[in-house]
């Protein structure tokens, strides 16, 4: 992966339902401050809402780390959603559109991947899940 430098960070705990709203509002605020246009702000906010909700719904609790990031050529936002919940048995299956273990629409993971520039998911059963997304400012 690229050499990254973090300019600023914020950590948002997800402990209850309302924290999903707090998290997506914070992500929008960061996106706006970093300089993303309105459509990108909305993409980032929506992806954050999906992934924070997954933490709340499937792991019960976790945290979200928002970072302003730059590498040699670009500046952008990196958001990490991590929990110590039940994890996923089959990541590939979970990334498929329409796959849901509950009664969702199976849209959160594949949808937020589509909205962002980079998307990484790591998960281990019984250990937890970590999803990292990036959006870069257009050069």
């Amino acid at each position: 992966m690229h050499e990254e430098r973090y300019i600023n960070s914020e950590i948002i705990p997800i402990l209850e339902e309302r924290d999903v709203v707090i998290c997506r509002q914070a992500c929008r605020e960061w996106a706006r401050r970093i300089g993303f246009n309105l459509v990108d702000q909305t993409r980032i906010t929506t992806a954050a809402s999906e992934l924070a909700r997954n933490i709340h719904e499937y792991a019960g609790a976790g945290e979200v780390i928002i970072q302003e990031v730059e590498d040699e050529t670009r500046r952008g936002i990196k958001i990490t959603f991590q929990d110590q919940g039940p994890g996923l048995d089959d990541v590939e299956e979970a990334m498929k559109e329409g796959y849901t273990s509950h009664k969702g629409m199976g849209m959160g993971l594949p949808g937020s991947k589509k909205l962002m520039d980079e998307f990484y998911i790591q998960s281990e059963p019984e250990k937890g899940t970590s999803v990292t997304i990036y959006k870069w400012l257009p050069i």
Partner: protein
Amino acid sequence: MVKKRPSLASRRESVIQRIPILKIRNYLIIPIQIDLDDLSAAQLQKDILQKIDKTGAQGVIIDVSVVEMIDSYLGRILGETARMAALMDAKVVLCGMQPAVAITLVELGLSLEGVHSALNLEGAITMMENILGE
């Protein structure tokens, strides 16, 4: 610099926020003016259906002009509300969706099929009165 913000949980309990539902002639107008958490969105759906039942309203206009994002949950609630309202013989018109929200919704893979939409509240009212044949 790393800021850590205290969770809301420690500051106050989750409170369900209620959205006012206005009745004009034979339809309802619902301006969504806050960032709805999931519980409040589910409550809104319940409130709308109850109000249709109680008043016999034949239409529902949901104004989303200040809504800054519609994710899979809110999208599902809106679509479901329209389908349930249809079962009660009421039409749903969504109005004022911001272009950025509409673009994101499509990219996310969500379609609000079965939901009529209008550019703004005025357009929605005209559409509603046409649908209801006034």
